């Protein structure tokens, strides 16, 4: 591992074709970041972590595609495994909406939530398209992978990448990782593994992901939105405000119509005929803002 230099973009290249699902990355992450464990949930598969959340900043997905009645050996395609993590997007939805400035882009071009600034509003959780961020209920702040910001500052590679025994998780400068990924996917294609594809290595997904993947199936299978669905929250600003503006205008028009139609008689028991009082003849001047 070469020197880690501030000002350069760093990230992960996760090659799912060589992931063996050992979960060493999960353990290393928890150990270094002192994340608490929780009761494992045992279902049909080997995934007892469940999801990325405030306590699990790495999550090894086990995507079970074994047919109920297998007639072939599966050719190694029956299981898909992927060590999922925060993508550290170039155009990060979480960073975009954060109202407090707690989410920043670090000197290593990673996306980091400052625990001392976050006030737990959870806008970032609603925005992250990958479901990465969750509230730490004990600390009252949003939490996710920091790409081992503290280790990077000390010149050390992230714990998960260091622990990965198959080099499924590779850490380095993003430019180098992209070259390496391109070579790897080309090699797989040459070997006839045509389903191999890169996700997030180019700008089509959120301007490029600093933590990108080599996948063995469509992104949706891994719970990743495809390029068409990788959209930023602010796309709805213009439409949302415009609709509100049009509604406001219609509300004003409706209000003015209601006020103009007041001359019609109204019967209110115990009250003087209001619309008569309100006629211009009876009341020569409008109030016109003489009170507030």
């Amino acid at each position: 591992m070469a020197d880690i230099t501030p000002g350069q973009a760093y990230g992960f290249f996760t090659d799912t074709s060589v992931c063996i699902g050992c979960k060493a990355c999960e353990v290393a992450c928890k150990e270094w970041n002192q994340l608490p464990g929780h009761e494992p949930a045992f279902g049909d598969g080997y995934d007892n972590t469940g999801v990325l959340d405030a306590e699990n900043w790495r999550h090894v997905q086990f995507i079970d595609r074994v047919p109920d009645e297998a007639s072939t050996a599966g050719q190694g395609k029956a299981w898909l495994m992927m060590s999922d993590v925060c993508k550290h997007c170039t155009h990060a939805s979480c960073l975009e909406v954060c109202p407090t400035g707690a989410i920043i882009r670090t000197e290593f071009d990673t996306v980091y939530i400052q625990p001392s600034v976050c006030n737990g509003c959870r806008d970032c959780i609603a925005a992250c398209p990958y479901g990465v961020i969750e509230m730490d209920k004990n600390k009252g702040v949003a939490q996710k992978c920091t790409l081992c910001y503290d280790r990077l500052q000390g010149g050390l590679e992230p714990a998960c990448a260091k622990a990965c025994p198959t080099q499924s998780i590779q850490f380095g400068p993003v430019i180098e990782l992209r070259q390496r990924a391109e070579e790897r996917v080309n090699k797989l294609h040459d070997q006839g593994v045509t389903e191999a594809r890169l996700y997030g290595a180019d700008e089509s997904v959120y301007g490029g992901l600093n933590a990108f993947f080599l996948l063995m199936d469509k992104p949706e299978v891994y719970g990743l939105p495809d390029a068409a669905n990788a959209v930023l929250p602010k796309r709805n600003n213009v439409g949302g405000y415009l609709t509100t503006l049009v509604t406001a205008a219609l509300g004003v028009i409706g209000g003015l119509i209601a006020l103009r139609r007041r001359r019609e008689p109204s019967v209110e028991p115990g009250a003087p005929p209001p619309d008569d009082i309100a006629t211009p003849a009876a009341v020569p001047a409008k109030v016109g803002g003489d009170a507030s």
Partner: protein
Amino acid sequence: MIGLAEAEHFVRGPDWTWYILFYFFFAGLSGGSYFLSGLLRLFGNRVDEPAARLGIYVAFPAFLICPVLLTLDLGQPLRFWHMLVNTTPGDEGPIFKYWSPMSVGAWALVLFGLFITVSFGAALVRDRVIRVRLLDSAAGLLDGVRGKIWNLVGALLGLFIAGYTGVLLAVSNQPVWSDTWALGGLFLASGLTGSAALLGWLVHHRADARASASVFVRFERLFPLLELALIVVFVLLLIPAGTLGQAFAFPWILLWLVALVGLLPGLGGLVTSRLTVTGEGAVAVASTRAIAWVSVLVLVGVLALRAAVIFSAQ
């Protein structure tokens, strides 16, 4: 919204629940009531002033609840002020992100708070609840052109407060919320419907405000029509996104039904009497008790609509 292809969502819910639901409800009522108050002052007659003050008296306490609910909803309530001030080391100072509705909303609440507090104080002075000569003079500062500008800006802020909450939901990647751009308008229309119903009932309890009762009857008929139109737009936008089923699944469909029932009194009046406040119409709502029940029905509908939108997406 993404073309005509169904949207994919892998996002986690932000766990915005009861505090946020009631914040949206009271923000709608406060903003809506303040807007109606401003409308009466800007375009009504002198006899509408008591009803306009009533609008302020409703808007102010409804507003006071809002920051309390928002603060309680935070994971770190004592850091509520981080919405306005960036405490990042080396980057300290005010923070405003025009592209983040939560940031814009935080500042708008501060500004609206200023307007509504001053207006509330002025209303108390003018109603002689507060009798201090100095304050009489201060209230006089809002006469004439200054008052018109004050009411105009305040009314616009009221509209924003009632509607931006819907934009806040839409500016996310949540299913349902982010699949439509109609929520801002829908929440605004709903806030106006609720405010008109509440004030339409309250004007019967303030003798000098009854002169505006017929105006509120018409408000109560027009705003639900606007709300219904936006519900239709909301539905039409969710169909191509493929999230209509999620928004209207059981039990949320029950909340939608309650929301629609809340629109019935106004829409029924519009169908039967249009905008004419006839003798028959007045007889139908002659009893203030009946008006109270109608008002409650409408307000429950306003709450149910927000609950359906908030909970169905998470």
